[in-house]
């Protein structure tokens, strides 16, 4: 895995917004989860610097934050890609052959499940049942569902997102 450095300067605005959000949560009981969730979606991962801000802001020991962050699979310590591809590993998808779809994705992107491409464009996140078993096997890209996938439609899917990037 490549190393990702968190740029405090470039993220200054986001950090400010995040701190403002944290301020609104401070008094709420059990605020740690919502705050971590916000950080994860705002920064795409949980940079160490941000976890330190949370420790200070919510007065929670660093060990507890780290413990919670490593317990839940949606928190990550490295950035997700611009397009995060969730591959459903539910039972229906499994019996309908999602493994070969995952293999094709890994091969096409040159990364393993759980990793992000060095250009930060794509990441593969194996995920629990997406609840779209009727159209298994399923992958979802940034929440957008794609059903009836097969290893042969993987490249087409990736290309459609690559195109989007070029256009913008």
């Amino acid at each position, binding site marked *: 895995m490549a190393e990702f450095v968190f740029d405090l300067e470039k993220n200054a605005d986001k950090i400010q917004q995040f701190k403002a959000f944290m301020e609104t949560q401070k008094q709420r*009981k059990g605020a740690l989860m919502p705050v971590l969730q916000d950080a994860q979606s705002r920064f795409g991962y949980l940079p160490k610097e941000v976890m330190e801000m949370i420790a200070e802001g919510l007065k929670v020991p660093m060990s507890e934050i780290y413990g919670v962050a490593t*317990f839940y699979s949606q928190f990550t310590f490295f950035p997700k890609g611009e397009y995060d591809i969730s591959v459903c590993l539910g039972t229906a998808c499994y019996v309908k052959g999602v493994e070969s779809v995952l293999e094709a994705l890994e091969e096409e992107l040159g990364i393993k499940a759980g990793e992000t491409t060095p250009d930060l464009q794509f990441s593969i996140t194996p995920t629990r049942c997406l609840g779209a078993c009727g159209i298994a096997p399923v992958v979802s890209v940034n929440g957008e569902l794609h059903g009836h996938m097969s290893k042969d439609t993987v490249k087409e899917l990736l290309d459609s997102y690559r195109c989007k990037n070029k256009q913008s």
Partner: protein
Amino acid sequence: MITTERDLITIENLREVRERARVKLDGRLKGVSGIAAWEGGYKLTGPFYEKQQRVVLRNCGIIDPENVEEYVALGGYSALAMLLKDWDPKRVIDEMTRSNLRGRGGAGFPTGRKWAEAYRHDVPQKYIICNADEGDPGAFMDRSVLEGDPHSVLEGMAIAGYAVGADMGFIYVRAEYPLAVERLRTAIAEAHERGLLGERILGSDFSFDIELRLGSGAFVCGEGTALMESIEGKRGMPRTKVYRTSHRGLWDCPTIINNVETFANVPVILEKGVDWFLGIGTEDSPGTKVFCIVGKVNNAGLVEVPMGTTINEIVYGIGGGAADGREVKAVQTGGPSGGCIPKSLFDTPVDFGSLARIGSIMGSGGMVVMDDTDCMVDIARFFLDFTVDESCGKCVPCREGTKRMLELLEKITKGKGEEGDLEALSELGEVITSTSLCGLGQTAATPVISTLHYFRSEYEAHVRDKKCPAHSCKELLEYFITEKCIGCTKCARVCPSACISGKVKERHVIDASRCVKCGACQAACPTGAIIKQ
């Protein structure tokens, strides 16, 4: 007119609002295909729906979930209004107890008993939690209710709050369900705006609020106490129960935790009456159950039927049997906590007791149909892989035991099984089931125990003959060249281990002992003569 639509709904004007909304709904649905008027309301039409009885899903696919008035138009919030006006909390609890509504999350604990326990404790703070952390793979009943009829859940929770004396509720929903989260946000906001949540609900003295909390990818948080830990901002590790959660739950206060489907049942039971509800389903398990029938089945989807309907009826009658002209072999119920039921037992009625007797569980309602190409050993391995990954790691038998079971199953599916492995699996299964801390651990071995019981010969074939009868376990397959071979030598040339021999224009042969099973020969063969068996 627009301003009055935004007005507060009260016990007094509910009827009027409903009548007005009904006219609008009737107008909107007029001529919409697939929806027909039925018993004073509406129903979905078509062969897939005809054999179903939709109680929980009564509004799904019919009303606009982002418009509370459409929910009201079909009787929504009238149960809550009725209670607030005329019933004392005790009566609500007595009626819920009489209804024998059993928890639809899987364990089937009587809802009324749970509520009565929380009611009994006279403390200032109590909580209601809706468990919407639907994590069983192959199950999406709760998602459908949250997306299609969110207000039925909000109303059910408010009723529970009124009954036990709680003014605060949480819905803990999976982050993997973004649309459900969105719909819930909308519904809660709209309920606030119309006086159906918050201070003085429906103009009564009763106040109740609901906060949304999101999961972050931990299956174990579907376990009640782990879910509470998670809401409290901690690692979702189940607690040991010195006291019941209805006595000391969230932040040590009496807490009612029920799942989405259970709450969605509550308003309609009270609106139509307990006797009506008791008339549906069986004595052991009254009411309906929503199932998700998926996998190798023709008509995959959500199915709601009275409890006691046979598996046959669900799989064949509604599901239309196996897809692709294949043969159904088994159905897996209850996700990673459930078992595989062989076709020979498909006349079993689906209710809590019957499923337990044949070694499976109701679970939340996932039903994955398997056909003759599915290897039952591999399915057991799949579920153990899931459990190992999702075990919280707190107690020894689940953390260590499931890991060892998975290692054994991996060994067996790779053709490295040995004499004694099946006995070791059974023994480990018994230990994990009997000694684990929470429901996840106590049921973790069920997929293995049930397949070992009903499909032992498949296990034996893997261990003794190193064969996978379903031709599914990759490492047990052998490539074989049939008589279609034209002797073009292409296969021999691409084989990386040079294990294919034969003369030009004669049938070639694979030396299975040296084959690395890469599949290159099969891809190179121009006549499709190479098969796996």
